[in-house]
């Protein structure tokens, strides 16, 4: 929706009139007012933290009107601007005609903005940042340059194509080689015929190969040995990979990109996977969670309206009117499950996220670089750990989502029993302080740390019941 054109022209006139009025009546310093006093650098930080989810500093509509040019069009007092941000409904009650117009124009479409906990000084910083306008580079802020581009992500799809071409070439080569021997023989025979010699006997390929192999037996044996060793090794490795689904990334019904949401837009993991801290399941966000943003963001940067329309089709939302369709028969989105644990494995996100305070990246890797859901191979997670030494990632070696991987981590992960402020672990510690408990504690401390394993993390019924 183009907001520029839909804005009533008398509003623009009013702004100009007001600006003129202000210019006449106010001193220069007062006129500089709220849009000029602040620190734009700090404003950027505050804006990104509080406002960027819905507003852009250009005219682009994110989930609410863009704020580009606000310093020119704001038609009410500075105090009201502060109030409009800190308490929108309160500001509306002031009766100011400009505010009344804003309410009439936008609230119906975007809803009320919630009251923002920003100070007046911070608002000044924000306004300075908006007035300064976008810096060189992408308009929507954030460290977009570091995010994988569409082409990079696409390229990862094409990894296999080279191998396929290679295979086709190989087959062609073999066919040509075989037919060329035929041609060779025909040519030779034709030559011999012309010379009046007997044609060469028609030996089968097998016989020819065997004859050749006997002639070069040493060479063939050595090659054969290598081939056998290679096949055994490959077979063994393949067998070890049965049930290992590293880098598994199934096609999804919606081309959802983690990279756009997590990397470019910096949405917190638990905004969508909100039950990770409350339940054993991290949860796939329900469609209404998508709509929190996509009610406003109607066009994606990669696929335009096509993919977002699938959300609307699921929940019943009319993109033109911006309204939910009444009595719509909603259809859930049938995602393909990525992290498939066998039925006999119990895993609780809550335990790891809430109690263990693990970062999501510990198991899921650098999701910010992923397209859809994907099982992060353990090497990638280790590389991420190396690149981000402060992130507290435990480096592992066994393939992701195998039992070896689980227990490797349980053996490495420390549990803070001694100085924990968690009453549960204090009780665990108390029971380790004397007598038999102390002996146990000494045994735990043989590797100079109390690990999850020491507290039962390697026991079958921790995960299997």
């Amino acid at each position, binding site marked *: 929706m183009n907001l520029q054109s839909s804005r009533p022209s008398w509003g623009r006139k009013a702004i100009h009139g007001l600006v003129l009025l202000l210019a006449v009546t106010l001193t220069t310093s007062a006129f500089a007012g709220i849009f000029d006093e602040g620190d734009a650098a700090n404003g950027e930080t505050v804006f990104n933290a509080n406002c960027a989810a819905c507003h852009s500093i250009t005219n682009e509509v994110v989930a609410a009107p863009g704020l580009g040019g606000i310093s020119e069009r704001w038609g009410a007092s500075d105090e009201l601007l502060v109030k409009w941000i800190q308490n929108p409904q309160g500001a509306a009650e002031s009766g100011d005609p400009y505010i009344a117009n804003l309410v009439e124009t936008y609230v119906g479409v975007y809803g009320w903005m919630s009251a923002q906990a920003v100070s007046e000084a911070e608002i000044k910083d924000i306004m300075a940042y908006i007035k300064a306008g976008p810096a060189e580079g992408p308009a929507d802020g954030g460290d977009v340059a570091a995010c994988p581009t569409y082409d990079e992500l696409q390229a990862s799809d094409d990894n296999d194509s080279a191998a396929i071409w290679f295979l086709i070439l190989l087959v062609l080569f073999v066919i040509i080689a075989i037919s060329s021997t035929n041609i060779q023989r025909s040519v030779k025979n034709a030559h011999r015929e012309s010379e009046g010699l007997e044609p060469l006997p028609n030996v089968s390929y097998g016989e020819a190969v065997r004859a050749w192999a006997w002639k070069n037996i040493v060479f063939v044996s050595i090659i054969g040995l290598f081939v056998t060793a290679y096949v055994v090794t490959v077979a063994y490795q393949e067998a070890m990979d049965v049930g290992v689904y590293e880098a598994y990334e199934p096609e999804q019904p919606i081309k959802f990109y983690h990279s756009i949401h997590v990397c470019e837009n910096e949405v917190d993991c638990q905004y969508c996977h909100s039950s990770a801290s409350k339940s054993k399941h991290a*949860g796939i966000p329900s469609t209404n969670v998508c709509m929190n943003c996509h009610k406003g963001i109607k066009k994606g940067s990669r696929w335009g309206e096509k993919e977002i329309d699938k959300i609307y089709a699921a929940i019943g939302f009319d993109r033109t009117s911006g309204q939910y369709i009444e009595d719509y028969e*909603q259809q859930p989105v049938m995602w393909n499950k990525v992290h498939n644990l066998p039925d006999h494995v119990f895993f609780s996100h809550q335990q790891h996220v809430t109690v263990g305070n693990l970062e999501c990246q510990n198991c899921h890797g650098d999701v910010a670089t992923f397209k859809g859901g994907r099982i992060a191979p353990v090497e990638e997670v280790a590389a991420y750990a190396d690149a981000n030494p402060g992130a507290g990632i435990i480096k592992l070696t066994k393939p992701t989502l195998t039992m070896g991987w689980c227990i490797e981590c349980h053996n490495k992960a420390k549990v803070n029993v001694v100085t924990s402020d968690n009453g549960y672990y204090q009780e665990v510690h108390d029971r380790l302080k004397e007598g038999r408990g102390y002996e146990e504690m000494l045994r735990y401390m043989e590797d100079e740390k109390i690990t999850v394993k020491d507290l039962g993390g390697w026991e079958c019924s921790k995960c299997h019941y």
Partner: protein
Amino acid sequence: MDNSKNYWTGLDELDKTEAYQEGLENEFPAQQKVDEFLADDRLKETNTGRRDFLKFMGFSLAAATLAACETPVVKSVPYVVKPEEITPGVPNYYASTYYDGHDYGSVMVKTREGRPIFIKGNKYHGHQAGALNARITGSVIDLYDSSRLKGPVAAGQAATWDAVDAAVASGLSSARNVVVLSASVASPTTQRAINAFATKYNAKHVQYDAVSYSGISEANRRSFGSAMVPTYDFSKAKTIVSIGADFLANWLNSNLYAPQYGMTRRPEGEWMSRHFQFETTMSLTGTNADTRVMINPSDEGKVAAALYELVSGSGSGKVDGVSEMALQNAANALKATKGASLVVAGSNNPDVQEIVNAINQSLGSYGSTIDTSKPLNMFKGDDKAMTQLVRDMKGGQVDALIVYGVNPSYSWYAAEEFNEGLAKVKTSVSFSGKADETAARCGFICPDSHYLESWNDLSLTEGRVDLVQPAITPLFDTRQAQETLLKWAGVESDYYTFLRSTYNASYDMSMMYTDSDWNAAVHNGYMMAAATPVAEATVVEDASAEAPAASNLSAAINAVKKISGGSMQLAIYQKTAIGNGAHASNPYAQELPDPVTKVTWDNYVTMARSDMEAMGLNIYIAQLDHASLVKVTAGGREVVLPAYMQPGQKPGTIGIALGYGRGANGENIGRAAFQTAENGDHLTDENGALVPVGKNVFPMATMMGGYPVLANMDVSVEAMGEEYPLASTQMHHTYMGRESVVKETTLGAFLAEKDKKKGYASWNRMHALNVHEDTNNDGEINASDKKSTREFDLWHDHAVENVGHRWGMTIDLSSCIGCGDCVTACHIENNVPVVGKDEVRRHRDMHWLRIDRFYSSDYTMERGEEEGLGAISTYRKMEDPAENPQTVHMPMMCQHCNHAPCETVCPVAATTHSNEGLNQMTYNRCIGTRYCANNCPYKVRRFNWFNYMGYDKFKNVNPAQDMLTRMVLNPDVTVRARGVMEKCSMCVQRIQAGKLEAKKASAPVQDGAIQTACAESCSVNAIHFGDLNDQGSNVKKISENNRSYHALEEIGVQPNIYYMAKVRNIEDQEA
């Protein structure tokens, strides 16, 4: 005391029959007789050759290998709009109330992702702390019963609500006489809805109960002028005399009386109740009685009269054939605790009840153990009105009949007459959720929603209203019966609004319920309402306007003394799991071994050994022995059922349970109600009709003065000369001849050594072995140097006894009544498969928790000494199969031994010990050698012989085979595959969840915060669960009590489960 009694589970064990001995030697017994197996016709159909077999195998292997390499694509479907209160993976609990006209319980419904999966008691706000029984606990599965109607039915065809509403409305508008026939209405708002309907159509309302207690109401009307069933309080009763009332399992609100009774059965308390039971068939209550006396059904009134005479001193108090001493003892005990005594009778004969009222009156029970000011809103059925209704129907005087919550075509004693009348009713409607016996004969079926899908209010007694709230939206196109009634009555309101209106100012209530009050009431499951408007039915009876009889005790006494019986009498009783038959299609109920007989999936005739031997019937029912079929003829009706030898059955009587023979005309009431063949298909008779489990004996009830009495005083029993297999679990999982599992004593002996240190009282001496070291420091090594078995270690000690958690359980044999609620709760919580009768016969029942029922003869060492018998003669006497044995119920599950014999023999370390004291079973590691089960001294390990989830054989019994019913499975517990062992895990899923809660709350695990399913369901608080390393925990304290002991202590496996010795309140010489 441990060696002075002989315990046995069944006659086979007592007599050491050949089959029993064979079973003893063989942990996994031969599957069946070879000739029987070879007689199987299906065997001949198999013609797979060896080469074919190899081909198939090769193909399967390749296919399996390929399939394993393929990434399975699993769909993961989130909500479109997630309800705020649901977090996937986190259970929600909803308080509600169960009432089916028979049982009443305050429940807490556990839902996962919106599906009810478990029902437990509403501990904080429920009646008797939410005491339930196995029927209520198992009711969750009825919600997912695929035999439920999917929508309204008109003339046997699926119809729409609009069509049915219109058709019924036209039928009703032209009807002159409209009758609503319902079970006792305990809901104020349902009554309002019925009244609204009755007003519009000038309808009569008749209430009747399948198992009638109208005799009690009538007796109270005669004695006190008001027809009602009072409230009983067993917790105050120091002496209880029950004449045929199974008040722990079936009589009135048995599930609420059980915890009251349980409170009085702890010898540590100020006093312990003394319980006399006079009855015919061994009931659950009878097994718990201190003194049990066998009587004929015809003598119930006479016993009551004799007790009255003895208590009031007005007569000799003798009854032919009933021990005079027992009557005298009972009367003396009653008199000694005047004001805290209680006499109850099971008979529906008002004369008997009138005499019982008189006894209670002279004992001062009214006001203490009986409260007539709080009449029950249940059991208001009027048998006379029902009889009149059937008469009217047969006379064509009823144009429209609405049947709500009852099934008279099955449960009315004169069902044929009812059916005959029903055929003459022009517009007949049933609200039944299934096309049951009555509904199938009605013109319209307007299926009511399940109680877990409904709103309602219920009032057990005045002053308190319990709420029913839906835990799931209706699965099918069903409509709550009340809403249907309102619609037909022309009330433009949905039932929820109508319900709310009962509790606001516009309806005359003394308390206003605002939204927040209402929400609090819904949250808690109840509210206190000063007045509950359960009105009397608008119009009840008019035809038989006899002048009500005034109280005339001597007339009643004379009347009961005139009741005579033939040489064989029939007592009709109810089983703990099946009750009145409403749950006949519930596989959990069918598979739950009857607490007394331990028979599953069947109905049978209980008989005394002497009678059976006289008739030449087979008295043993071990695996290879079939029961003999007998034909029972009573009042012109006959049934053929297998005979079961029941110790404690009065010779000259038989007993048959109600609740069987459902769906006798092939009505679709659920698959589990019908017998299955060995291959899992339903059995069919010669006409191709399904064969119900058991036979219906409602028609054998005797009408006495207009009141159906569940007995028949003159029956004949005739051997058929045919055999029938019964599936009884009593011979399964024996202790291989080790019988020191039970410890018991008498109250006197207990009190004499009450303060002795644990392990030193004569009735609970610790087991010690002689050692070659000077343990008592007397300077020499001799026979008096002993060490407790606890001090012998074959293995390295686990550190668990001091460090971290050590989960443990205590089970009080004194308060356990053996009701089986824990077994059902365990069954549902842990996805334990239901295996069906055929598999139970092969000892393959899967119950993780079983209740061993031991009989012991009433002959003791002490008595032998007194009678001057030598030890050998005394033992011989003790082995005499007592006709009326004493009983011990002992819940037995994995004992989580700290020195577990199973762990050391597992070749793949699939069963290991956790550092929290749990014996862990890792299914995915198990390869099924079954060594562990062989080595388990308690025989608590179960082997998955089949893929119960998928194998065709279980399609008619196992709920997990049905795509709808499997929704009841607990998603936190693995469904086990074929070929693995399983056993009690001490609900490790709940332990893990409880620990996580504690970690999140930053606090140690609070005692009682984690409950296993069995401990949670135990209404008598016999089972406690907790952390034995928590010094303040309940289990720690109980484990140090001097009554507590380890089962099979002498083998030194050091279990984490403690039992507390049973104490009987009997005089030693009387025993």
